[in-house]
Structure formats: C-alpha cells, structure tokens
C-alpha cells in the first residue's frame, strides 16, 4: 500500500473491515432468528393504523444475503481489499493493464509492425487501412483540423490543400506530427503605425492575388524592410520558420483586408501540439499515408 507511510493502517483497515462485516452478519442472523418479542402484549400503534407486523423475512431473502456475504468473503480473499493484503490472485490494476497490453500485442502486434514498416503507397492501396487511418485522424486530429482534414477557417490549417506552411515532404509532415510546431509572427503595430499597417496589408493582399505591384508602393518598401527575412523576397515563404507563402492566395487567417491587417498589427502564434508520446509508429505511419494520399 504505497499510499500510506507505514503498514500500520493496513492492519487496522483489515481488522475494521473483517470485524464489522462479522458484526453485520451476526446482527442480521440474530434478528432473523430471534424469538418474536413483538407478539407479547398489545401491539404498538403509532398513528391510527400505523403499526409494525411481526412477519419473518422470507427465506429466499435470507439466502440472498447469505450468498452475498459468502461472495464478499471470497472476493476479499482473492482480490486486494483488506488493507495491505494483496489477495491470493495477486491481482493489481497495473498488472491488469500489463496483461491487456500483452494480449493486445499478441493479437495485433504483427499487423501493426508490418504497417509501421510498409511503404506509404502500399498502405494507400488498402482501403481497409485507409478507413482505419481516417478514424485515427478523426479521433486524434479531427477536433481541430476537422474530420475531413479541411481545417477550420482562421484557426486550424486545411491539410488537404497544396500549401504546406511547414513543408509537404513526408519527412517534414512527420516532424510536424511528432514534435509539433510553434509559429512565431510578432505584431508590427508599434513599428508601422495604423497607416503603415493598412498600406502593408493592401500590398500583401495584392501580392497574394498575383496583382502587379508598383515599385514606389510604400507597402512594398516596408515589406522589403521588415518581412523578407521570413517570408522571402518574393513572398514565397520559408518552411523552416513556418512562414507561409504570401503569393499562393491560400490564407490561414482569412483574406479580407481586416484579417490581414490584424495579422500584421498583432501577429499570429499558431501552435500545433506534439504527438510523439500520444501516437505509436503505426499510427504515425497510417496518418502519413492518409494525409499524402492522392484524392
């Protein structure tokens, strides 16, 4: 009993349990088989017709409580219940868990090994595996990215489109899933001021829509001054930093002027949690196959 400083209490718990159960047994049986004291003298009446009859408990009820008591005694001999006594079966919650892991491995170990090692193409060809992968995605990722992986506007990226903020290679996606990603885009309100933000946002928006931008555009000047480091000279982005491309007209946080102004003024800090400890190799492999499948 690891939760107690000494074994002292374990003994007490056992004693209290056994003695009180025995006392309950004795009490039940003594009343059950007692001579009927109620019959002597006039029966007590509490309120008009309200009184107490002296019928004995039916026999089947007696057998019911007796068998429950016997069951309890056997249960407490077999399982850990009496303080620190661990029971004849040496059953424990941790042991139960190990057991069910072991039987899980026995049943599924082989097929899961083979999935973890298989090529993505071969997994993608098996509709049963793809269906299973979809459910893994739904369970682990769907809450944010949606069960169809189409994302949620302005919150969670669409994983079915061509644009990959952190890279679309299998290795890069795997890194995203296992280690998570933390995007850092600071706010520029203080540096640019309201007008500066507006001009820059207009410029970025035009860039995204593929419009021709003029060289003397004040937006372009600030872009080149502040933004190229991460988003690149032409706005192509940088997967090392998770800085998205600004020229593909795919917008994580919306494409309206207000959305873009807000991004520039206040910054964005998208966070994708790490799943390395929450998924095993098989599940990561299934997810990779599912995310990179050709639709």
């Amino acid at each position, binding site marked *: *009993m690891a*939760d107690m400083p000494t074994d002292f209490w374990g003994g007490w*718990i056992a004693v209290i349990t056994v003695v*009180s159960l025995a006392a*309950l047994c004795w*009490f*039940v049986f003594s*009343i*059950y088989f*007692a001579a009927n004291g*109620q019959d002597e003298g*006039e*029966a*007590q009446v*509490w*309120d*008009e*017709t*309200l*009184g*107490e*009859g*002296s*019928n*004995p*408990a*039916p026999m089947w*009820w007696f057998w*019911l*409580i007796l068998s*429950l*008591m016997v*069951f*309890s005694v056997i*249960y*407490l001999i077999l*399982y*850990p*219940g*009496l*303080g620190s006594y661990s029971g004849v079966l040496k*059953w*424990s*919650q941790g042991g139960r868990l190990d057991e069910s892991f072991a039987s*899980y491995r026995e049943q*599924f170990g082989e*097929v*899961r090994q083979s999935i973890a090692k298989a090529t993505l193409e071969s997994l993608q060809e098996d509709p*049963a*595996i793809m269906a*299973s992968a979809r*459910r*893994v995605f*739904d*369970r682990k990722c*769907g809450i944010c990215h949606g*069960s169809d992986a189409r994302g949620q506007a302005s919150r969670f990226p669409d994983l079915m489109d061509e644009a990959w903020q952190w890279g679309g290679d299998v290795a890069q996606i795997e890194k995203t899933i296992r280690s998570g990603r933390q995007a850092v885009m600071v706010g520029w309100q203080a540096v640019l001021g309201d007008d500066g933000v507006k001009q820059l946002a207009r410029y970025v928006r035009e860039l995204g829509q593929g419009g021709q931008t003029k060289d003397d555009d004040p937006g372009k000047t600030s872009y080149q001054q502040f933004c190229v480091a991460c988003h690149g000279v032409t706005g192509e982005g940088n997967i090392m930093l998770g800085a998205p491309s600004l020229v593909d007209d795919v917008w994580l946080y919306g494409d309206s002027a207000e959305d873009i102004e807000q991004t520039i003024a206040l910054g964005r800090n998208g966070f994708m949690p790490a799943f390395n400890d929450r998924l095993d190799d*098989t*599940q990561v492999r*299934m997810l990779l196959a599912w995310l990179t499948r050709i639709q």
Partner: protein
Amino acid sequence: MSAKNENPKSEFYHDRVVTALVMLAIVWAVLGMAAGVYVAAELVWPTLDFGEPWLSFGRLRTVHTNVVIFGFGVSALMGTAFYSVQRTCHVPLFLPRLAWFVCIAWQIILLLGGLSLLAGITSGKEYAELEWPFDIAIALVWVCFGIIFFGTIAQRKIKPIYVSNWFYGGLIIVITMIHVVNSLAMPATLFKSYSLFAGAQDAILQWWYGHNAVGFLLTGGFLGMMYYFLPKQAERPIWSYRLSIIAFWAFTYSYIWAGPHHLHYSAIPEWVQSLAVVMSLILLAPSWATMINGIMTVSGAWQKLRTDPALKFIVLSLAFYGLATFEGPMMAIKSVNVVSHFTDWTIGHVHSGALGWNALITFGTFYFLVPRLVGRELYSVRLANIHFWLALAGTMLYVLAMWGAGVSQGLLWLSLDEFGELRYSFRDIMASMPPYYLLRLVAGLIFLSGAILMTFNLFKTISGARTIQVRPPAVRGAGASV
C-alpha cells in the same frame, strides 16, 4: 382527521409549515424538470443556448440537478418529516418557529443559489456546486432541521421510535456530516474558494459525499417517506418489524463504504475499490428487504390499488426502487462498470431512481397528504389517474432510451478494428445519438406534463382552503410513556 380520539389537552400539530413545504416542493419540481427538459433538448439541438452563457448546457444542467434534488427532494423530505414525526410521536413540533426558519431559509438558499449557478459561480464539485457562503448557510439550516426533528423525538409520547423516523434521522445526521466535510474550503473571494483536499483524496471525498447524498437523501430520506406513508395509505401495519430493522442497519453500514464505485480503475488505492464492490453488492439485500416489506404491506389491500391513485404511485415507485437497486450493484462490479462508466447508462440508472423512485413516491405521498392537510377531497381523481400513466410512460421511455444509448456507447467505445485501432471515433458515436436523445426529450416532456397536471390538481384542492388543525390523539399501545 382523527377528531374522535383527540387529546383535548394537547396543543395542535404544526401543519401549516408542512403545507408550505409541500407547495414549494411542487413548484421546484416543475421548475427543475423544465430545466431537465431544456438540457435534454440542448443535447438534441446544441444551438438552443443561443450563445448565452447562462443558457448553456453546463450551467443549466447544474441548475437542473440542484433544483430537483435540493429544491424538490429536500423540501418534500422536510415537509413529510415534519408531518410524520409529529404523528408518530404524538406531539407537536419542537420549536415550530425554527421550522418556519428552516423552510424559508432553505428556499432563499435555493433561489439565490440557483441564480449563482446561472451566473456561472460554482465550486465544481458535483451535487455540491454552491460556493462557500451557501455551504455555511446550508450547514446551518440542516443543524436547525436536526434540532427540530430530534427535539420532537425527545418529547415523544410513545417510547419505541417508529422506523420512518430512523431513516429521517439518518438523513439529517449523515447529510449534515458529509456536507460539512466535503465542503471544507479556503475562501479566496466572496464567490471563490479552494477545497482543502486535492488529487485522489479529493476524488474519494467527493464521491464519499456524492454517493451518500444519493444514499441517505435520495434513498434513505425517501425510505423514511415510504415507511410512513405507504402503511398509512394501505391502512395496514408495516409487514415486518424485523426486516425493517435489518434493512436499516445493513443499509446504513454498507452505504458508507460504497462511494469509490464511482472511481473504478482510477488512481485511488485498489483496496478502496474492492471494498466498494463488496459493499455495493451487499447493499442489494437491505434494499430489496425494504422493497419486499413495502410490497407485502400492501399485499392485503390490492383492491385499494384500483381506486386509489396515491397508493398506485407508491407501489410503482417501489418497483423502480427495486430495479435501480438491482442495477446499481451490477454497475458497481468492475467488469460491468468498464462498459457502463462514461456512458448514458449511468444517466438511465440515475433517472430510473430519480423519476421512478423519488419522483413517483413523492407524487403518491402528495396525493395522500394534501387532501388531508386541508381536510378536503382531492380535486380530481381522474386527473391523478392520468398523471399516473403519464409518469409511468415517461419514466419507462426515459430509462429505455438511455439504456439503448448507454449500452451502445459502452460497446462501441470498446470495439477494435482488425488493425487494433478503435472502430468508432467519438464523433461517429455521438453522431448516432440524436434518436435516443430525442426519445428522452419526449419522455421528459411526458413526465413534465404529468407533473404540471398534478400541480393544477393539488393547487385546485388547496385553493381557498386553510390547513386544518389537528390535535394528537390519546396514546394507545404498549410503549405509551405518558
């Protein structure tokens, strides 16, 4: 009612406070069940909260449980305890003014407490959500309740204490105790406090509280009601004195240990869980002892069932009591709990007890009690009979819908596909729930409409009348102490 052998020297019984508590209980019943229906609807159409925080599921659900248990349940228990303790002791209430204080203070706590829950103020402990100022007030009211109750018993004119009073007494002592211990907290502001307990200790304590609130309030308290009103209504003595003694002590003993069956396979020690399994199983025996005792009491008076709606309600409630107390021990077995925990099965179990047992026995008791309090016939027996069928249908439908939903959830959560992955995601399973939830909503509406019929019927019975004045009768029987 027993004008013939009244004791003219005695004071009148104090029944006006009983009438008030019964009426208030009815109002809370309708409000609380309406809240239940609303949250049931939100589970079908989640947007019904209209983006208003106070209409959200989380807040209204808490309002529902608090109003039905503490508004409806406790007001009814206080009223019936005051009524029956006077009659079984042949003395008027001890400190009747204090009884009025208890009645009114309790209603104020509920009203303000309900509003605080709507405002999102909660301590986060289930069935003990109200914050610390309320907790102090609640403790005070229960202590006063105890003073009145035990004070009345102390002055009794009949030496042996009738069995209903043991159960009411157990209710008062245990609820006061578990409420105080579980609510111990360090206040931070007027509406925020931090529990003195943390982690596994907090969990064990919370369910020691939660389970014994079910045990001594929703079960023990209502058993007190049963032991007085069922034999009164059947006009026969309770069937077996011995069964009631055994039932009381075995029940009190084993309930106290059983709380951790709410925490199977969690981080609490294994021996605590095992003892909970054992004690929950033993609990079947006293529970069924009481059921047999009640049914056998009526067994000589079956013909009354045809004409007397009040008795019908009480007998049916015993059947649901038997059902819930059979199901409970089964769910307490670990391998069953693995399926039932985290599913609507629990919700079905709760309401087979709450609707089938608590609500039905209270309805039956009120149909018996209200006409007696005002000295009139029930306004409409026909309406009461209709209510009986609505209540039965509502309860059955509710419980069946939740069993269907719960068992399918329990099995679907656990099912694996050929690669060892869960076969159904949470969303898949929730997407298959609306039919069950719709059925439960319909069940709730049926049950609620029955309760509204009863409200109409009883208010008609009361309206314009005053609580009649009754004196204790002269004491008969062996144990008379005066």
